């Protein structure tokens, strides 16, 4: 069989992404027709920048979702004789009914670059947003009181945040993300501390609002505690009695490290916003009717800080993606076999000047995702300022 031309490669890839295109068309069609009723999300479709960004991000989200249908080969399988094969090469011994070409070539151990890239999106899009959410929970839960109360609490927490921020990220990763550290159980304790924040957050959130109505408060807080502690036991200590929640120790370590590095940044943003918003009259109005400090922080201040926080959330997912890539690049990734983009770039860079394509594909993929997130953040910022 013949090697495909670039035109054929592109056409073939576009074909493989068919489910993604369909999903994108549906998403955009629905969103644009109902955009006037969708708040900030709807306004995003008034901004070309935001739309492009959203499109790119959703492209990768759908790719991650439909990855199983898109890939042409098993991303971990090695195809003998195809070592460093150029894009479009035909397989030496194609499986019956299987795909016959290596669309983007093969890497130094003869694995299909295209399929690895597609599968890699799954790893990235599972970890990055989740880690960012946790970092936000930590940052918000600590940033609110630091900004609101000020004083010694603020000094202490800000010192800790600056401590983490002053640490060169790579050094921190080299110290934290190693198999030796996993043996000591430190990541577990980290997780034990960091994962408790979402539970605290939601408990306080509901309690401060509904303490005037104990029945409803008990219901909400109870549900949070049951669900939260269940997930907590599984994720942090791997002790979930039902076995639904669990995390691979290596993954947990990467996850915890990324959350740890991101949380201080969020903390600083939240703190700054709170210091600004707490001078507003509606906060004073809350105080003069005797509201508790947590109600004011969570229900009066936080919702009004949402604009900048949403923008920062998008940027931070991008930043986390870069961080994950950095980890992979230094061989500190989730697992050596993992098709995540950073590790794949790391694999490919050794022969970079001779066979660039195995590293180039994931590099461009990562770049486009981060670009999409940045554009999305820009669009959101622009639209949220237009109110």
């Amino acid at each position, binding site marked *: 069989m013949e090697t495909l031309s670039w035109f054929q490669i592109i056409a073939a890839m576009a074909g493989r992404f068919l489910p993604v295109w369909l999903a994108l068309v549906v998403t955009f069609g629905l969103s644009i027709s109902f955009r006037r009723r969708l708040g900030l999300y709807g306004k995003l479709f008034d901004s070309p920048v935001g739309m492009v960004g959203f499109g790119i991000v959703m492209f990768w989200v759908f790719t991650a979702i439909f990855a199983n249908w898109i890939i042409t080969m098993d991303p971990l399988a090695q195809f003998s004789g195809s070592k460093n094969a150029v894009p479009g090469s035909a397989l030496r011994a194609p499986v019956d009914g299987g795909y016959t070409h290596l669309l983007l070539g093969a890497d130094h151990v003869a694995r299909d670059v295209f399929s690895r890239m597609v599968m890699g999106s799954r790893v990235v899009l599972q970890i990055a947003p989740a880690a960012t959410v946790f970092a936000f929970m930590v940052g918000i839960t600590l940033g609110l009181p630091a900004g609101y109360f000020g004083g010694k609490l603020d000094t202490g927490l800000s010192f800790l945040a600056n401590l983490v921020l002053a640490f060169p990220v790579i050094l921190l990763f080299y110290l934290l993300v190693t198999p030796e550290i996993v043996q000591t159980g430190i990541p577990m304790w980290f997780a034990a501390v960091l994962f408790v924040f979402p539970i605290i957050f939601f408990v306080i959130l509901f309690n401060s609002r509904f303490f005037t109505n104990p029945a409803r408060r008990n219901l909400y807080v109870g549900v949070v505690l049951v669900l939260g502690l269940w997930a907590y036991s599984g994720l942090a200590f791997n002790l979930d009695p039902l076995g639904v929640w669990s995390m691979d120790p290596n993954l947990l370590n990467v996850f915890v490290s990324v959350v740890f590095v991101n949380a201080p940044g969020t903390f600083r943003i939240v703190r700054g916003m709170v210091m600004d918003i707490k001078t507003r009259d509606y906060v004073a*109005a809350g105080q*003069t*009717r005797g509201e*508790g400090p947590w109600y004011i922080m969570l229900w009066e201040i936080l919702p009004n800080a949402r604009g900048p926080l949403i923008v920062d959330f998008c940027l931070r997912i991008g930043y986390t993606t870069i961080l994950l890539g950095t980890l992979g690049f230094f061989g500190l990734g989730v697992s050596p076999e993992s098709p995540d983009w950073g590790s794949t770039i790391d694999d490919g860079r050794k022969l970079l000047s001779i066979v660039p394509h195995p590293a180039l594909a994931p590099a461009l993929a990562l770049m486009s995702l981060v670009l999409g997130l940045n554009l999305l953040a820009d669009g959101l910022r622009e639209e949220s300022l237009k109110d």
Partner: protein
Amino acid sequence: MTDTTWDPSRPILEIENLSISFFTRLREIPAVMDFSCTVMPGEAMGLVGESGCGKSTVALAVMRDLGKNGRIVGGKIRFKGRDLTTMGDEELRHIRGSEIAMIYQEPMASLNPAMKVGAQLAEVPMIHQGMSKADAWALARQIVADVRLPDPDRIINSYPHQLSGGQQQRIVIAMALMSKPALLILDEPTTALDVTVEAGIVDLVKDLGHKYGTSMLFISHNLGLVMDVCDRLCVMYSGEAVETGNVVQVFDKMRHPYTQALFRSIPLPGADKNARPLVAIPGNFPLPHERPPGCNFGPRCDYFEKGRCDAHDIEMEDVPEGDRHQTRCLKWQEVDWDAPIAARVAKEKARIGKVVLKMEDLRKYYSVSGSAFGGGMKKVVKANETLSFEAREGETLAIVGESGCGKSTFAKVLMGLETATSGSIMLFDENVQSTPITKRNVDTVSAVQMVFQNPFDTLNPSMTVGRQIIRALEIFKQGKSDAERHARMLELLDLVKLPRAFADRMPRQLSGGQKQRVGIARAFAGGAKVVVADEPVSALDVSVQAAVTDLLMDIQRENGTTLLFISHDLSIVRYLSDRVMVMYLGHVVEMGTTDQVFQPPYHPYTEALLSAVPIADTHVERKRIVLEGDIPSAVNPPPGCPFQTRCRWKSQVPGGLCDREMPPMRDLGGGHQIKCHLAADILARMEPVIKIAAE
């Protein structure tokens, strides 16, 4: 730089049928429609109207600085006979700053923070006259002295933030005068300043206008100020000029229903909350894209005639016998302009009951760090000094003073947001002085509530109106179930005269006055007995102010609420308060019933304050007392009497007593208290500041 082709007997500025629109993604928003006006050399023209009426847009159009979205869509602006609307950028640049200069509302924001004042001033002649740097600085120094700033050498070498607000505004004026412009545009030049400082600026502007023969376009929402400064005025409503003419004619013989309604809604001397209440203009200002057909004022007008007023666009018409007096009203000849106000219903005076709040010797000190780096000496700010007073049920006690006088601190202490340094606060016979709000019980908290100043800030922007009121009900333990609280919330909306449908609206869908009403509803959710209203109407438009004030008064009458009305606006204070307390730098300098305070003998500060407030009534004669200098900082108050640095009576007190000793609080009889060293006979000789001329 006079243009030889222009004849000085012709108008300096002629605006003809000017229309301006702003273009957004969705639509074109007309901001100004068919606006015409003429300014003769040496004349001061006032542009009056409420916010959003397009008066600032006109000013910016004259400067041709409408921004990216704004465009002149029709008409002409002729300056000295040359059409500005078609002028090129380079030509415009020569006119800006040299022939037309502008003075802005926010002096701090309009000066470059990173440039010395002198450099910013000197720049003007250096650009327009090609003056050398040394000459330009010398001129700057001279003009700085001209705007009556002390120590001009120091001033021109300082940065803007080192000057006070009043000084900054003088610098902005100096900058405008650097090249002796033919036309000066003043856009609300004193709105951001305190009244006593405002009086000084207004005097300066008037004098300089005469001195240099400059024509002025004076933009303001304050009718009294316009009367003080201008020869002619033009009243604008919703993008249109509705009436224009000579100030005295328009004030005394207005021929447009909007002008009339405006005058009826502002508290002039003689208005009284019970006997002669204000008449609020019904309805709301129309949004630019929701203007009605025909007369824009139609839906709010008492004389509206369906099928006639809303049939087609209305042109300006000349009023005969007037001095270029024009009105945009179809019915101006039919309306009986001298008819008494029909809607005015005298209301029963509220019953004043027992004492509910008593403060004795209250002090509140803050310690602040000395420098920006947190180092240096700790300084003590004495925000409130020996505050003693009592307030009774159903009474309105006004607390009057300018910025830094400690009135907001006082409110915080009373609310329990801060605790007092010493002294006692008795609330219904319970001492709450050292109890912060978190320790107060629900009854006390719900009994003392507050209405805030800034309507755009008083409601949480991300919660519905109904939800915010219900939250207050929940906290105050009102109602047994959600349904009961919901019903009560609707009643509260009725109480503040808002439609029930507003419960589901977000605050951004409400106008300023409506938000303020929601704020009032929220304050009364727990049946408040004492309400502190911190400048509740000062950020609202004149026509809305009256309605909100009346609402507060009505609720007070029904519930016997004690109202502590904090304000700097003496007109409104005279209108609605029973007793007045005047504060200066943390001290109460005068206290008494409204009549006592507004009649001589005055405290010298009260006298100056009264004379500084502009009154939009041609029959009122006002003595001009302009205070020198600015309000001293509360961090570093002067020794002795706090007011001695600016007091014009100081020389009447023998032996420099004012410099050394804090005057005692003296009782002049009938509960009228005054903190002054002046001898009784001098006080007795004081003349009233305001005289109402016989008609």
